[in-house]
């Protein structure tokens, strides 16, 4: 009882987090490619 709600819930949680993580990694690589190497660093 309740699997019809539980399974979609887990799929949405893990699916959303994986999709958002992939988006951030792709966005980071795109930005890094546009920046000159000396500016491609983060805060100390």
């Amino acid at each position, binding site marked *: 009882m309740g699997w019809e709600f539980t399974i979609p819930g*887990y799929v*949405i949680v893990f699916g959303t987090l994986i999709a958002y993580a992939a988006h951030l990694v792709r966005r980071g690589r795109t930005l890094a490619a546009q*920046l000159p190497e000396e500016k491609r660093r983060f805060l100390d």
Partner: protein
Amino acid sequence: MTNPTAVGGATQIPVGTGSKATRVIGVLALVLGAATLAFGLVISPPEITQGDAVRLFYVHVPAAMMSLYVAFSITFVGSIIHLRNGSKFWDLFAGASAEVGVVFLGLTLITGMLWGKPTWGAYWTWDPRLTSTAVSMILYLGYLVVRRLEMDPVARSRRAAVIGIVSFANLIIVRYSVQWWRSLHQTSTLDPRDTQISGLMYFSWFLGTLFALAAFAWLVMHRFRVAWMEDQLDAHHLDTALAERRAERPADGDTGGATKLQPGGA
């Protein structure tokens, strides 16, 4: 956050937002995520009255904790520090934390609705806890919208910081809504004075919380670095444009072919 990693005396230039720290946290998040799936969906037992719907507890509560308590608290603190000293780090960190927090809050609302249907008989009711949580979602979406407005970056950051501070007040209402008003939503299951779960259920929630914490840390680090590089790219474009304008300007004494007016001349 981190500088490029020195390898064998040479500096390794990052090709994205990853670093040794994010890789360690990422692997940890994957392991904890797999453990949460195993314990949440398979190993932990169904509850007597709620059946298998109780398994949503192991993702719903950790998502709520990360957004309402961790993410938006960072935004609150970062906003105060930014308003005090204009720190770019805290401005971007507050924004990164708010965006990841909104993702977790969205998951909180969705899993809560999916849990509400089998237990309350409805996906949504205008209950104090649900309503105040939805208000938080609107407030922090507004915060993110303000951060993207086309305007002076300093004024934009300061306005966003004010919203980040003011929005925090609603989190107190969310936290105590189940005590201040009659609510359909249950009171805290994890109250230290009266914990209402134990054994495998408690362990599954604990794993889910550790997973959410690791995922949150990984996402915020990457989001912060994306924001940092966006800021650097804007500055780089501005520097390039200024350099081009300076190169176009004629050198001192060179009138560029224009007739120079002589004092007293006709």
